[in-house]
Structure formats: C-alpha cells, structure tokens
C-alpha cells in the first residue's frame, strides 16, 4: 500500500506536510524559478504589517556556526499592496497559501484580520506574535501569556469563524507550554513552533555588534534541538493541537525529527538560502523515510516519539 502523504492542520488538508517558512520564500515568485510552488504543501508568506515597512538598516545578517542571524525588520509593502499583488499571483499559481501577519499593537492585529477576513484562496493565517509590542515597553507579544492571548483573541474575533489561526511562538521564554496553552484558550487552532532565538554577533574587527540593530534572530540547523524540544514539550501538553514545526530543517531526516516530536507539518526556512530547492528535497526525502519505516499514513508518524517506552512498535 502506498503512503498517504497528506496532512491536516487546523482543520485544513494539505497534499503534503512541507511548507515554506515565513520570511524565507520571498513572495513565492523568486522560488517559482526553481520549482513549481504547488509541489509544496503550502506557501507561508512573509509576515505582513498594515503599512509599508522599510525594515532595518544593513548589515541585516551574520552567518553563525550552522546558522545565521537576521534582522530584516519585517520589510514589506503593507497589507493593501500585498493583497493587490502577491495573493492574486500565488492564487493564480494554484499554491496553497498561509498568510503570516504581524503587528505592533493589538489593534494592528485586528485591522489585519479584518482585511483578510473575506479574501479567498487562503488556507490559514499564521499570526507572528514575536514582535515588539509598542504599547508595552517593546516587550514581545509572544513572551507573556496574557499579551500573546490578547493578540490571538483579537485576531479570532476579527477574522470570523472560517479561517484557521496558527499562532507562531517565540522560543525565548521560560515556559513555552504556558504560552501555548494561553493562545490556544484564546482561540488559536494551531501553533507554529519555533520562531528565531534572539542572538548577537560582534564583529571582532570593528569591535561592535555586526548587525545595525545589534541583536537578530538565530535560525538554521544550530537551533534544531531547541525546536525539537519545544515541539515535544508542547505536543506532550496539548496533544490535540496541531503544530506547524520549523527550526533548522535542512533534509528529510530533520523534518522527520520534528514530525516525530509532534509536528503535523514542517516549514523549511534558512535551508532555502543555501539551496533554493531545499524544501522540495526535504519533501521527497521525508516521503521516502516515511515509506521505509512502513507507515501507510503520514499522520501516524506525528508525535510518534511520545509513545510509551514499552509500547508495541509499529509493524
């Protein structure tokens, strides 16, 4: 029997579990040069804000051992131009679309949700709450259960009952399970784990922080053990909440690791910078690995590492 490689996330079905990661696939156009976007489970768009954003000054990146720092600062055209240009184009390609939104205030999230409410052709919203909350001394929404829940419940109220909400959490917290629990109570249908870790590189020639904004987000294989841990912990605590996993996935083995920890789908981010077709390769390799392990359905592998030590092994 052949493998059913489709997955379900927050009530939606996707033909396969490999997605792009927000901010790591441009508008989709750039990658469509290298492969057909419909070959992926979904395209997750770069987090969009209400207004056009220049992002931060350069240098915006620094390579680190098995990873990189970025401080793009959410450069983008703003929601109106995004809905005018990017979404129709992706829809024309036949790609499944997950729109990522980001705000600086709770009201921002409300506005964005209302703008997206009646847009057709979107499979889900990914709500990036790893942004500084300008109303709360710049503290990141995702760093506090209450402000995280605030942002999510606001989206829930404004988006209506249709579109699934995936809350994207930051790993830079003392207790990620409490944040996860809080946003799920606030109406999140799924969780995206993990966003980047806060890091810094100092240029030992100039003897100053390398990035113009000093700190940046650490991504890539270096952080994979943190992603696996976060996904495992959250899946153990909230086994029914679907997880979109990400963090350092560069091959099928890596994706499988996140799936076994509890991810129902996996986004490929930084790996795409080193290899434009990384996501397609990850997808193909993961499919083979699932088959080799004798599973008929991808969904049986989700969270499989949680089974009891003495559980009967899968035949």
């Amino acid at each position, binding site marked *: 029997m052949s493998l059913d490689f489709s997955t379900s996330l927050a009530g939606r079905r996707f033909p396969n579990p490999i997605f792009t990661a927000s*901010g*790591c*696939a*441009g*508008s989709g*156009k*750039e*990658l*469509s*040069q*290298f492969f057909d976007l419909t070959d992926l489970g979904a395209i997750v768009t*770069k987090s969009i804000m209400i*207004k*056009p*954003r*220049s*992002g*931060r*000054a*350069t*240098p*915006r*990146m*620094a*390579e680190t*051992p*098995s*990873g*990189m720092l*970025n401080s*793009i600062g959410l*450069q*983008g*055209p*703003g929601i109106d131009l995004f809905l005018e240009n990017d979404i129709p*184009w992706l829809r024309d390609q036949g790609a499944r679309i997950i729109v990522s939104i980001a705000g600086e205030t709770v009201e921002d999230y409300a506005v964005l949700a209302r703008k997206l409410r009646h847009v057709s052709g979107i499979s889900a919203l990914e709500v990036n709450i790893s942004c500084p909350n300008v109303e709360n001394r710049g503290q990141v929404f995702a760093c506090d259960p209450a402000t995280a829940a605030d942002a999510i419940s606001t989206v829930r109220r404004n988006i209506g009952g249709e579109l699934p909400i995936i809350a994207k959490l930051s790993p830079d917290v003392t207790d990620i399970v409490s944040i996860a629990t809080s946003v799920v109570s606030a109406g999140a249908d799924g969780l995206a784990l993990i966003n980047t870790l806060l890091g810094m590189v100092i240029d030992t020639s100039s003897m100053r922080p390398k990035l*113009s904004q000093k700190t940046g987000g650490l991504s*890539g*294989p270096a952080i994979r053990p943190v992603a696996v841990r976060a996904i495992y912990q959250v899946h153990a605590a909230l086994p029914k909440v679907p997880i979109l996993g990400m963090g350092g996935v*560069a091959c099928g083995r890596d994706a499988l690791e996140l799936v076994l920890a509890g991810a129902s789908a996996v986004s490929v981010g*930084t*790996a*795409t*910078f*080193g*290899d*434009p*077709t990384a996501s397609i390769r990850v997808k193909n390799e993961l499919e083979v690995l699932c088959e080799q392990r004798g599973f008929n359905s991808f969904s049986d592998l989700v969270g499989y590492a949680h089974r009891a030590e003495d559980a009967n092994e899968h035949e």
Partner: protein
Amino acid sequence: MAREGWAMINPKAEQITSEILSNKKVGSYNHMVFAVTDLAAHARPGNFVAIAVGGPASSMVLRRAFAIYRSSIRADGQGLLELVVAASGAGSTWLTSQKVGDTVDLIAPLGTSFGIPTEPVRSLLIGGGYGSAPLFALAETLKARGCRVDMVLGASTAAKIYAPLEGKRSVSSLTITTDDGSAGVQGRVSDVIPRIIKDNDVEIIYSCGPMAMLEAITKIADSFDVLHQCSVEESMACGIGVCMTCVLPVLQDDGTIRMTRTCIDGPVMDGSKVTWTTSREIPEGVWGK
C-alpha cells in the same frame, strides 16, 4: 519597482554540481575555472554565481557570491565559468583550497548585468581589488560594439591588482593606483578618474569594488553628469531574492526610495539612484521608514 514580471527573476539560473578544472594563485587571488552546462552561454558581464562552501558537513549554511570573470563555451562544447577569488574568511579560504577535480554546488548566472549601449560610446571601467573581475568581459563586449574602453584599477597594494594580460586586450588605456605605491600611481582610483573623464570625454562609467569606492565614483560621475553603472557588494544570505538581507536604498521609477534587493535588482545598479550611506540607519525619506 524596475522589475515587473516574476518571469524576469533570474530566468536562466541553474543549480549544478560543477567540477573545478583549474585553480591558480595570481597575486593575492585565485583564478579558478569551473565546468558548467551551457548556462555559460547565458552569463552576461556583471552576473554572479553563488557557491555552497565547506563541503558536506559544513557549518557554513550560506552560499558565497562571486562575480563572473569570464564565461565561455569551449570548442568541445564544455561550458566554462572563471572566477577571481580572494581568500579572506572561512568560506573563500575553503573554496580556494579545493583541488582540481573537486566539485562544488553552484548556481549561475544570477543578478543583473551591465547595460550595454547600443551605440559606440566612450567608456571608463573602474575596479577595486577583485572588483576588476567582471570588467574584462565587459571591456570585450564594449570593444566589440565599437566603444572606447579606458580602465582604472586600484588596490591597497600591487598583489591585489588583478589584471591578466589576456584580459587587457580590449582596453585602450589602463591606469593602476595603489595605496602604498607598489604599482602604478600612489593613491586612490578617485584621484585619477576626473582627469581621465576629461581627457577622454567619457560618456559612461562602469565600476565594481568596495562600497566606499562606488560612492566616491558616484560623486565624481554625478559632477561630470556621466552615466554610472556600478556593481555593488552587500552581504547576501540567499542570492536569489528570498531573504531581504542584501538591500540598499535605491530610487525607483515611481519616485520613491526603497530598500531594494541587490541580488536580483543588482548587483549592477545605476550609481546615481543609490542613496549611499555609511551610517547604520535607514536614510530619511525611504519608503516605509
């Protein structure tokens, strides 16, 4: 934005496993030749390649960009790409230490190329350090179009001037400057350019080199009201337009200044449209600031 349709983003780019056919030390640099497909036929002067570095268990997750020095198809049909690589940090040191017969993962051709005038014009090509690399192929193309080509190459010291004999064929004059005076005129390229522009009645400048040099050339070009196409060098994480790390503030056709990706809307850009800034801040007036 200048770029309109998605079909225009690196339409000829290919990702291939490429064998190193030659790797020779020339002054401070390594001249390296790579076996490629007939993508070589599509590479234009100014395009770059992106190479994965460090081997299969590499801790370096990002590619390195290199300007194409020459691209050609050998008589037997084998496509060739030639690069000039300075061993500086871990990635380029790894690349230059690869041996003939070793293979690398390479994507090319990427980015914009130098605009070639349809009429014969008097051109000045200016390169800083390994920035001379893309200029020789450009010189050939310009020469073939009947253009006059003068060249200025500058570096800190003689060993960092890359100017092989065969590369200089198409050049009417070559002026060299070094900071330490070990070759040519002691000083910077900007010291000698104004006189060359005047003497030769230069109509267009092409440049490639460190950002500070490009900025200085832009000022001179603007003061003489001469066109200036420069190949910029910003840190690039992806090289294919998906990461937004490589941006510069560039004046758009719609009158806005936008943080523009130098990997797909560059590396060759119109110098006068770039807001050159040494501060680590977004300049005033940039769209979305």
